[in-house]
């Protein structure tokens, strides 16, 4: 499926001009980054940020990357890798499950606060976002944060914009913290364990100081990843093997972390949900999901459940987002109520008084 790109500005000023014009005319816009997410149900004319592309500054010594939102994520990954660095939150590439034909972009990554398995150790995308430039729904070109590691100067709008899915503003530049790639990694695999056992393994491992950087359960196997300097790694591996001996761990030099991060195991269709929960609640929620007739996998030590199957999991776990609709109906994002809903609506009006940016995307 290709998206007809009506508008593809090549500069911040043009983005501002277009949005100011649509603001005046109250004409809705659907913001598109790399376009991997085909299911953008927002109404309106497509506004593509793909031409607003390229790295502004990358300073490995200062561990900062400043780049435009249309920059393809694979390009960024390759550039950082060449310097021995990475985005520590391990952004996934969800092309496989979203079946879009684009390439994920840096702006789309921030807009979704996209974070992979290493989130258990390193935090989410928003934790690595140092600053942003953006155009709000009035067409004002604005900035927040900066390019330094610590910054408490005024309200932290960068955090709010991360994960706002283009409903508050169009990001026109993002500043991210980069971190050294750890030179070695190893995986402990626990084949043939239930989700309940996996959770016990995760809890034990994540309560050690051994900096477990991935805790995933897919297809009946639990995986723990550790990364670090060579010497550290051998020590930590042996300590974890001893601690978890009863669960019969196997040491793997490598494991399909990329595929697990990208949820490849649920690539082949069906409604797909992303559920955030308290890790120890995961086994019970997953039992409920099984009863609903679908399959689930665990990431983030149990804090993230992927569910592929029928029904609406929100009765079991309220923080569920419908990532791939397929035959499912109803809102994609969990509905809010009360004061939180009022605050969210208020923020939308503050950033976008005419309601023209991805209208309805997060509440329909």
């Amino acid at each position, binding site marked *: 499926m290709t998206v007809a790109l009506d508008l593809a500005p090549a500069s911040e000023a043009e983005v501002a001009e277009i949005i100011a014009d649509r603001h005046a005319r109250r004409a809705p816009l659907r913001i598109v980054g790399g376009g991997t997410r085909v299911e953008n149900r927002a109404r309106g004319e497509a506004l593509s940020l793909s031409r607003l592309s390229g790295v502004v500054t990358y300073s490995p010594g200062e561990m900062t990357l400043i780049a435009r939102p249309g920059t393809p994520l694979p390009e960024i990954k390759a550039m950082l890798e060449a310097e021995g660095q990475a985005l520590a939150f391990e952004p996934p590439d969800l092309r496989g499950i979203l079946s879009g034909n684009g390439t994920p972009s840096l702006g789309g990554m921030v807009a979704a606060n996209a974070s992979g398995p290493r989130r258990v150790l390193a935090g989410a995308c928003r934790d690595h976002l140092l600053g942003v430039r953006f155009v709000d729904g009035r067409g004002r070109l604005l900035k927040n944060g900066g390019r330094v590691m610590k910054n408490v100067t005024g309200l932290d709008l960068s955090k*709010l914009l991360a994960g706002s899915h283009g409903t*508050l503003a169009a990001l026109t530049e993002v500043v991210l913290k980069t971190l050294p790639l750890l030179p070695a990694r190893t995986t402990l695999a626990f084949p043939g364990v239930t989700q309940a056992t996996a959770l016990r393994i995760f809890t034990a491992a994540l309560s050690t100081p051994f900096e477990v950087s991935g805790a995933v359960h897919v297809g009946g196997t639990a995986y723990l990843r550790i990364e670090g300097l060579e010497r550290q790694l051998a*020590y930590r591996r042996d300590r974890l093997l001893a601690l978890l001996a009863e669960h019969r761990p196997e040491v793997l030099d490598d494991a399909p972390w990329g595929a697990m991060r990208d949820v490849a195991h649920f690539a082949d269709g069906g409604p797909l949900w992303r559920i955030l929960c308290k890790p120890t609640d995961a086994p019970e929620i997953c039992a409920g999901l099984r009863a609903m007739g679908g399959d689930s996998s665990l990431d983030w030590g149990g804090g993230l459940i992927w569910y592929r199957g029928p029904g609406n999991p929100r009765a079991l776990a309220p923080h569920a987002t419908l990532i791939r609709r397929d035959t499912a109906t109803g809102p994609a*994002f969990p509905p809010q109520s009360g*004061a939180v809903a009022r605050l969210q609506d208020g923020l939308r009006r503050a950033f976008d008084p005419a309601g023209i940016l991805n209208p309805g995307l997060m509440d329909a």
Partner: protein
Amino acid sequence: MTIAMPAPDPRILARGPQIVAALRAALPADAVIDDPQETRAYECDALTAYRCPPLAVTLPRSTAEVAAVMRVCADLGVPVVPRGAGTSLAGGALPTADCVILGTMRLREVLEIDTANRFIRVQTGVTNLSVSAELEPLGFFYAPDPSSQLACTIAGNIAMNSGGAHCLKYGVTTNNLMGATVVLTTGEIVELGGPEMGPAGLDLLGILCGSEGQLGVVTEATLRILPRPEGARPVLIGFDSPEVAGECVANIIRSGVLPVAIEYMDEPCLRAVEAFAKAGYPDCPAVLIVEVEGAPAEIDDQITRIRAIADALNPVEFRESRNADEALAIWKGRKSAFGAMGRLGDYICLDGTVPVGQLPYTLRRIGELSRQHGLEVANVFHAGDGNMHPLILFDANTPGDLARAEAFGADILRLCVQVGGCLTGEHGVGVEKRDLMGDQYAPEDLAIQMQVKDVFDPDWLLNPAKVFPLDASAAHRAAR
């Protein structure tokens, strides 16, 4: 005194007794203070050059009582200044004569410790240090560790998004905050975030953290906790120039070793520390303390790498600690730096942050500005993340000295912004840097922030004269 506060609203002052009576009707007797002898204890925070007793002080013991205070104040149109322990260095908890102080230090309960899900839930009046003390027997800790941790509260930490020496590795408060219970100006109580990993909707917790009491009053918090490392050890490295020390910091960071802390002390600071604490530091222009964590073999490995990086830069000295006593000796001078400086006279402590690569230039420029302003400055700071702490020494009893120190400070902060940094890395804007916000942000960048405040606090009751320059906020404040 160069920072102006708005004149108190005479209509509110005139209704003082009525306001106090309404608060008394809503709260237990000992939770409302209006005796001028007692309200004086709340007239300032750690920015002591600015003082003003409030109209009244309220010290609720529960979220419901906080909500009661908010409702009374909203009904009567009285500004509210939230307060934790009052250790803010930015005047964040500074009262105005027409405000009610809402102190949350009596909300002191630890509500839940869940090591399986790695969080602790507390009322926000608990001190930072007591949180880690609760966790210690369980083998866990709470990472953000401001130097004021003995006194400062989790409420203040959340409001200021506070950091500490260990945030190079573990991040600041916002990276370790999972959820909060917040009382809005309407008196409504809302839960933001929680034990699950991140919101599926807009990240309201993300803007709450660091909002300096502008959006709501935080009464409970869910904090991420971490397993304690097996051990930690510092090394001390002396250099004969600040530039080379700065280079060493950048090289360590690039190398893949991730120390928990890289602290920097310059010559004036080292002199003061030697005189005060006799820490036995080398006599040289710049000292770094680098701390690494792990098991003994891991620590050795990391220190070997750090030594290789340092050796390439010809250090004056590379001192390793071989045991706990030697580790303490290395930290001793750094930990007593603020006390040592205090003995030299009055000081103001800034915390502008710069890109790590700009440290050498910034330090040199600060030296030049020091000569220009005729005031001494000492630098002791978190170098790994470029978070400077220039301490400007002055004499509060010499007329005009404070104003000169403030002018010098403003020049330093403008310099930080010019080299790509920011006005404040962890202390907050408060009143201290309020009037410099225009140096970092364009009017519209501030406008959107104020519009966010409008959403949470349409009548601008919470901390109304802070963070935003008064002329910029005038129209918003007039809404009241």
